[in-house]
């Protein structure tokens, strides 16, 4: 899997820092935000491929952040990660376009598999859009 960029959003600074360090070690580009608003300010559709988003955060919660992130960067995939297992928020997340909903603690190898898969979905979606655009320009019959 090629390098891609991840935005880690979690109000637990220790967890966020450790996660960024671990993802860096695996050659992924990574930066962090401590709350939903900061994350939305930082989120760049042209830069971030995947957002790793905590569900329960003070201020703007994970689900609201997800909704706004999907508006700002529809192609960026969002993987939700939570220490508070809740089916309701899990289903809410999937309904609003989250790629996956994971429980803490999460084995980092497993997490990377999910992030890889999320990135692959993003790439596939991008290719589909690019193909449609090329076809449109070339006036190819569909």
């Amino acid at each position, binding site marked *: 899997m090629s390098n891609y960029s991840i935005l880690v959003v979690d109000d637990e600074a220790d967890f966020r820092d450790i996660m960024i360090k671990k993802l860096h070690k695996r050659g992924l580009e990574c930066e962090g935000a401590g709350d939903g608003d900061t994350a939305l300010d930082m989120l760049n559709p042209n830069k971030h491929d995947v957002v790793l988003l905590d569900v329960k955060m003070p201020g703007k919660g994970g689900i609201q952040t997800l909704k706004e992130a999907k508006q700002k960067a529809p192609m960026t995939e969002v993987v939700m990660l939570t220490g*508070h297992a809740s*089916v309701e928020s899990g289903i809410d997340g999937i309904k609003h376009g989250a790629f996956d909903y994971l429980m803490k603690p999460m084995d980092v190898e497993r997490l990377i598999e999910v992030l890889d898969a999320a990135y692959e979905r993003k790439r596939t979606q991008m290719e589909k859009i690019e193909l449609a655009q090329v076809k449109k320009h070339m006036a190819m019959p569909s």
Partner: protein
Amino acid sequence: MTNSLLGRIKSLLGFSTVPQLSLEELQRLFTEKYCNFRELLTANNNALEAMAQMENALHDGRAFSMAFIRSNATVISVNIYKMIQCLVTMADGRYGMLEERFADIQQQLDNIINHDVIKVEGRWFLPLHEATRELVDLAGEKMANLGEAGSLAGIRIPPGFVVTGSATRYFFQQNNLYPAINRIFQQTDPSNMEDLHERSNEVQSLIKRAPLPIDLEKQLYNQFDQLVQKSKTPVKLAVRSSALGEDTRQASFAGLYHTELHVDRDDLIYSYKSVLSSTYSSRAMIYRLTKGFIHEETIMCVGCLAMIDAVMSGVCYSQSISGRPGAMDIFFSAGSAKGIVDGTKDTQHYLVERSAPYGTIHQTAESSPADARLMDEWARDIATAAMILENHFGTPQDIEWSINKEGLLYILQSRPISVAGKKERDQVGKRAVNEHCLLQGEVTGCAGTASGPVFVVRSNLDVLRIPKHSVLVVEHPLPQWAPLLRKATALVAETGSEAGHLATIAREFGVPAILSAKGATKLVNGQIVTIDATNQTIYKGRVEALLQHDQPKNNPMDGSPVQKAMIDALQLISPLHLTDPTSPYFRSSCCQSLHDITRFCHEKSVVEMFDFGKRYTFKKGAAKRLVDNMPLEWWVINLADGFIEGFDSGSNYINISEIISTPMLAIWEGMHAYGWAGPPQASVRGMGSLFFQSTRQPGIDPAVPSAMVQKNYFLVSRNYCNLSVRLGYHYAMVEAYISSLRTERYVTFRFKGGAADERKRVGRVELLAAVLEHYDFRIEKAGDALTARVEKRSQAFLFNRLKILGYLTIHTRQIDMVMDAPGQYKRYLDKFLLDIEEMIANEK
């Protein structure tokens, strides 16, 4: 239904009902479907893994928490919801009923796994003498019992008050502690002692750091001041735990929660918070986990009792734990009872009759005649009180008491005895005594036998190092060693009596325990010993004669609330009712469990993918004829990135060297590993059957043209291959996805048909099943049809499996014709296994 009928009519008349797509459209459609298919498969794996985790936890005897159940149930539910979304998308909106079934099951599951923190409503404080069993939710078990005991004639309790569960709840809510604690719990690995200690410290310091709300703090000081006013002398408090669920017959929590002694006004707040935080001490957490208590249902109430200036204290079991009928035990020593329950003090023992005048049956005290007379008198007082308490509470009691300087007896605690008495010394043990006796103890903490390597605990750090199934050896049986009993096969302590907290917990956990075994800490770490706790003897090595008589240990979780929640949750998750995809009941509306929904989604998604070729045809030029010297037609359709870059898309032909689909290349290699020996020599009857089958089923005759029947098609991308084959009279289908993500990898094989009669066709399927099972495939058979699957293995492993399928696809042609001939089954089995072993030998 109308569409389907119309389709069949059109089909019969030779009209195609499916639109022809350009290669680009076909590729886009495939990519979309395949993305959903892959996500569905991953979600399926995640859900099944979580199901297996829950099933294993329930059946392998390990301890698990509500957080574990909730976390896994959430993984299952969220992934199944994802599966439904993927399937509905793949199937263009069909199967909408699944969401309804899911919501219905989910609602029931939610009621089981989501326990809110118990809502304790009411006063923040209760005078101790007002606490009764009816107010147990407010006062906690210990204080409810003690308060009620104080109302009985002949029973004296210290003055004091209870800080209720309602106050605890207020304190926790004001500081938002419940969500923070739940989050830490979900992330705790209960099998990792170090992690558990760390998390426990984290939670405890959260509680200790949280400020007590001003109104609560003010009232707490008021309560203390009122107590001082009433007593008219300086008062110091014993601040004691009184949790809900503590001090019951099922679970004593003996010594696991904190007690602060000699507490004055200045230390009151700190002591209160210390007792509250001990709810989450690692030893209490492990005990709750082992006994299957629901953490949200553990509410700590706190008893604040005026300290008794004790000259003598002790523990009384109103029914002797030696099991001797008609007798009760009184253990005692000078001063407070702490040294007795910690096992650090020398303890005297009186065995007293249970009926008046409570005569002494046996006693170990060495004292002057005057002291002995006084002690006999006190023993009678204690025995009288014990029987009053037993009669009132209706069950034998474990009682803590103190006698003050004025000789007045105070009851400090009365709870049901949590486990039955020990066994008497037995004959088998006695016979073994002379064999390899290492050490003799004096007290049986818990009867039974066990064997394992010695592990002497000398410091707190050793707690993290103790190997599983060790014989735990300690100097004093302190309650702080309670977590180790989960890992230990037996306990030996140099000091202590049956009245100690650790002995009580050993009995609850069914861990054989010998106490007062002087010199035990000199045993060598790692040395294998056998413990005969019934006869208080430690032997060198394993003494099988003793161990054979050992009863299997009970699972401490049996019948617990957490175990019940797990069983109830699994009832909605695990049972599989939808087993036969051909059954008319294999419908979304028939899904009764979450497992049914996964099965349904998986099956239907596979059908959606397999029908891809049937459902969509493609314009000429999309398929490339593979150049090969095999006398069969192979066509390849590139669904994504299965051809080399720069391949001439205008060409009608392709060479194998221009294909980069790794699964296809593996199948191809298997097909070409050995030349086909040609059709087997069949009898005249066999050939007749072949012609007969051709006339009955023109669809299986390769001479009859149809879109995807006559030619053999590979649908490929770099990581994917779907091969549909009709060779002779059977149909085979191989499908594989092998990428860098292990969870997504799979190989599926389907096989059906043949020209011979059914018995022979079934014979061939049996042969295939035998070969494939030998190579770790999971097999499903139904008549002459077979499905074989293997998933989530290494890439090399799966590529080899594809080679095997390629080989079998070619070499099982027409052998059904001879499957009834003697020795043929074995001959083919041997040949196939030999060829395959040679073929994959290089990879090994």
